[in-house]
């Protein structure tokens, strides 16, 4: 029994069918995720339209260095995730393991940077509440969106990291063959979480700078 056939699960008769089902299922899930983030994006859009000046003023207080650095980190993690999935697909187990480890490191680095950023934000008192340092009061609406959107994104990233770590261990222990379509599902999810951040960057960090 070859490694590739070991990757085949019920109820599929061929690995190609299992792969197609995996991609389709994950894409459908991602469509629901688009609408999940879409709700917050829509709320942001409406409030920004209502209070454009407060949003510009509030957004100036986000840390563009951390934000830009984290975008570069996530884009790079998508590169390593892509190569990890492609090399797994071709049966290059060792390359795939190294790339998965690099993706794990980059994803963790994102969270570390985000942690420093949150620490600074809280030190500056930028959490909506009675002692909020900015005026007018609508600047708090921007910061509420900041915390919700980046927080929900971070939760997605943490979930992705958990699945990524588990699959890396399984691949390392040879409990999961590299040909398993699960790597494709993981990669799709990872790239989606990266895309969400790409959209958040201009909305949360790049407004009110000029």
């Amino acid at each position, binding site marked *: 029994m070859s490694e590739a056939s070991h990757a085949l699960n019920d109820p599929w008769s061929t690995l190609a069918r299992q792969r*197609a089902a995996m*991609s*389709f299922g994950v*894409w*459908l899930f*991602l*469509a*629901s*995720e*688009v*609408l999940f983030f*879409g709700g917050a*994006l*829509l709320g942001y*859009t*409406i409030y920004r*339209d209502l209070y454009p000046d407060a949003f510009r003023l509030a957004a100036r207080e986000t840390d*563009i260095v951390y934000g*830009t650095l984290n*975008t*570069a980190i996530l*884009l*790079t993690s*998508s*590169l390593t*995730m*892509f*190569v990890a999935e*492609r*090399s797994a697909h*071709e*049966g*290059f*187990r*060792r*390359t795939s393991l190294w790339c998965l480890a690099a993706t794990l490191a980059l994803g963790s680095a994102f969270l570390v940077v985000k942690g420093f950023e949150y620490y600074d934000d809280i030190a500056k008192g930028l959490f909506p509440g009675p002692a909020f340092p900015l005026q007018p009061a609508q600047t708090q609406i921007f910061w509420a969106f900041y915390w919700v959107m980046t927080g929900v994104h971070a939760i997605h990233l943490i979930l992705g990291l958990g699945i990524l770590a588990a699959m890396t261990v399984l691949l390392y222990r040879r409990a999961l063959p590299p040909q398993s379509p699960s790597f494709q599902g993981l*990669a*799709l999810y990872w*790239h*989606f979480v*990266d*895309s969400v951040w*790409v*959209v958040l*960057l*201009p909305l949360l*960090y*790049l*407004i009110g*700078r*000029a």
Partner: protein
Amino acid sequence: MKTETRAIHLWLMPIAVWLALLILLGLSVGSAYVQLGAFNTPTNLAIAAVKVALVLVFFMQLQSSSALLRLASVAGLFWLVLMFGLTASDYLTRP
């Protein structure tokens, strides 16, 4: 049997895409500091859209995917457009 060293060919396309993404990131952050008036936000959103498109087409492999997957990939965006469109038809048309 392919050897593992041949894995180098897997890197060429994604590195090109990655470089393009980093250049766009630089453009995006740089342009945010240029005085473009009302055009700062549209510029940045357009750059973000190009970046997302690059990720979708190359990293998420839509360029080699079946029609079914391509349709599934735009399903979420389709409903998102409806949601934004219908909401905007209220909020943006209030006197």
